């Protein structure tokens, strides 16, 4: 029966076909399972890396939702890893600067999502996290953009609880403040009595005694200057409680007065100081004059001290956007390349500075930076810098310090 034969053959063929389909499907399933296992392995690996990061790690998407969190971050924020995925990070964490709530648009992640830039928070930025239990702790943080196919799709946040570091920092500042005050009291007695001794209040001195007393007196003045800077630093680093008294200030006139007060120092070394005010109608700035004076005096006396005899110093004042850029340029010894990153560190002195003047205190620039940043300005420098030589060609020597003052 041909038809029957046909059907049988047909059935055989169909069975064969289904067997092949089954085999193919088995293969596919196996591939997929393998893929799944691989994926799971990869994910486990990533999660292991993420959870072994010693700091809190969060990945936040464009809508501010948490997409990934490691164990340490969950512990800091007092949440469970599973429970927090998909939640709005702003609802989990409140951010404060000192005692004021940080507006949403000023949060580091918001800035990163908007600008695509890395945003960093340091110890002295005074930023706190407050979690749902009400626990408040100071943090340092770095927020990095997550970019996919050229688009910003989120931010990776790495943060640390710096409660201990902050305590240490505060203790340090308070120690400096107390120590400075306690040291000033005996210093006053030494200063006043050595002055009285020099002036013959206890009878006339011979020539040698006069010279010796002069040495003692100069030593006291140096010690007192260093103490004054330490005290100012301790106050500004203590944060929060610095009271200032901003007044409208004409920078050219103000600078002129400072140059006059340093004239003796400059004259001894035959150093010429000149002011270039680029604009005729330079706006007045609203600033605490005691702070501004300390900044300019420090930079200018450094420029005089670290410049050879007959050197020159140029001060330029110009408006740039919403700020005044104030610069002090000298043709002195400069700052060695390898040491430039340390120049604002407390007690640091560059090697060439030490060999020129062995007994500097190394805290002047730290104070300058702190003050400038306190009034929300910026400070930077360039060394060596460009001077036009006598024959017209460019010469690279000296240092130029720039700082900004908001208008």
């Amino acid at each position, binding site marked *: 029966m041909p038809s029957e034969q046909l059907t049988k053959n047909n059935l055989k063929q169909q069975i064969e076909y289904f067997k092949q389909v089954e085999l193919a499907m088995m293969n596919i399933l196996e591939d997929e399972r393998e893929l799944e296992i691989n994926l799971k392995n990869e994910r486990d690996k990533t999660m292991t890396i993420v959870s072994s990061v010693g700091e809190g790690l969060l990945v936040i998407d464009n809508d501010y939702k948490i997409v990934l969190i490691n164990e340490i971050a969950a512990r800091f924020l007092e949440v469970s890893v599973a429970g927090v995925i998909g939640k709005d990070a702003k609802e989990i964490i409140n951010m404060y600067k000192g005692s004021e709530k940080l507006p949403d648009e000023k949060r580091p992640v918001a800035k990163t999502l908007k600008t695509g830039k890395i945003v960093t928070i340091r110890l002295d930025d005074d930023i706190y996290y407050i979690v749902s239990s009400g626990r408040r702790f100071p943090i340092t943080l770095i927020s990095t953009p997550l970019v996919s196919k050229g688009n910003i799709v989120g931010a990776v946040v790495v943060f640390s609880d710096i409660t201990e570091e902050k305590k240490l920092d505060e203790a340090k500042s308070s120690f400096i403040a107390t120590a400075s005050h306690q040291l*000033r009291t005996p210093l*006053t007695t030494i200063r006043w009595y050595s002055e009285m001794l020099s002036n013959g209040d206890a009878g006339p001195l011979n020539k040698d005694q006069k010279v010796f007393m002069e040495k003692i007196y100069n030593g006291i003045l140096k010690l*007192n200057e260093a103490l004054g800077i330490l*005290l100012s630093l301790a106050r500004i680093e203590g944060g929060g409680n610095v009271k200032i008294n901003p007044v409208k200030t004409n920078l050219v006139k103000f600078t002129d007065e400072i140059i006059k007060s340093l004239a003796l120092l400059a004259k001894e070394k035959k150093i010429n100081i000149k002011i270039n005010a680029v604009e005729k109608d330079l706006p007045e700035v609203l600033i605490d004059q005691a702070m501004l004076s300390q900044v300019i005096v420090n930079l200018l006396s450094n420029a005089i001290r670290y410049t050879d005899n007959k050197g020159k110093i140029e001060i330029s004042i110009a408006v740039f956007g919403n700020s005044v850029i104030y610069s002090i340029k000298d043709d002195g010894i400069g700052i060695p390349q390898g040491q430039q990153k340390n120049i604002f560190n407390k007690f640091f002195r560059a090697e060439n500075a030490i060999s020129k003047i062995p007994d500097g205190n190394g805290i002047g620039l730290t104070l300058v930076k702190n003050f400038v940043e306190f009034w929300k300005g910026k400070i930077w420098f360039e060394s060596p810098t460009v001077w036009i030589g006598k024959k017209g060609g460019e010469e690279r020597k000296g240092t130029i310090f720039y700082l900004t003052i908001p208008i």
Partner: protein
Amino acid sequence: MDKKSVLIIEDDFYITRAYSIKLEKEGINVLSVSDGEAAIDFLKKNNSPDLVVLDLMLPKKSGFEVLSEIRANNKWKNVPVIVLSNIGAQEDVQKIKELGVIEYLVKADIGIDEVIEKIKKYLQ
């Protein structure tokens, strides 16, 4: 002409002594007390001095309190006061200036001769 008188309110014996040596040479009458309570007591029992030199860190009653009491009392409120202290924090300076002083000086930052010159100037 009557001698001018200065009341020194200062707990450090040697600082007081330095003022005395220098001011007496200038023919100025030096009166002194070494704590805040004694200062108020002295003012109550005597005629007002021509000038007060006030320290801030004082036993029993601080210089801040002494100055507040001086300014709140009708008899003394016009007495000129110079603060000479080793506290130099801006907030303290501000607080003192609001209470009313003719000058606020940080002791360690100024020489004795300059202090005496200032006192003489304010006594004229």
